[in-house]
């Protein structure tokens, strides 16, 4: 029933109020002396350069797509790992075949230069 979720709701409300209180204290009591440097966007203490909406290299997408593809295959390996003792030798052989097919894709991507940044 929904009643079971009431603690969760309380946590959410509490978190919201704490955030509100902290923000309010800072805004109410803290000194406020704006300078030009303080008004700039914060970038880990470095002096910011260029706008934040800079174009990202297309190569980044390539790497990201490759990452998705190889990453998602883990979904087949995880259930296998849970029961691999029961599957015996045939399970091992099958997983090796599966990994080899993945490796074929990896070799293809490598040889095509998809992994080279420059």
């Amino acid at each position, binding site marked *: 029933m929904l009643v079971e979720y009431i603690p969760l709701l309380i946590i959410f409300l509490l978190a919201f109020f704490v955030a509100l209180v902290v923000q309010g204290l800072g805004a109410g009591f803290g000194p406020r002396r704006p300078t030009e440097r303080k008004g700039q966007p914060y970038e880990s203490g470095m002096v910011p350069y260029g706008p934040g909406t800079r174009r990202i290299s297309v190569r980044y997408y390539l790497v990201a797509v490759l990452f998705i593809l190889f990453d998602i295959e883990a979904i087949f390996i995880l*259930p296998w790992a849970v029961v691999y003792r029961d599957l015996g030798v045939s399970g091992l052989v099958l997983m090796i075949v599966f990994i080899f097919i993945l490796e074929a894709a990896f070799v293809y991507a490598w040889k095509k230069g998809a992994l080279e940044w420059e």
Partner: protein
Amino acid sequence: MIPLSWYLIFSAALFSIGLFGVLARKNVIGMLMGVELMLNAVNINLLAFWSYLYAGVNGLVFVAIVFVAAAAEVAVGLALIISIYRRKRTVVPDEVDGLRG
């Protein structure tokens, strides 16, 4: 316990949002996201049926396969979009209108 019908309604709503996204968005990325929403709505549907009604391995296996197929689809789709964007500088299909007749 949350009743099964809530999950089904939720997944139907998600599917409809995705459907609307594919049909109404002008931006290809938005359309792609719509397709993904549709596929994930189906996943929720399958998992809900699996966990409430039909314990077994079918539902789980299906969800895993849907995941992988969706990822493969995104990879192909993003590659096509990037390739077309590099030439045409737009991701709005209405502006890519070389084919008419």
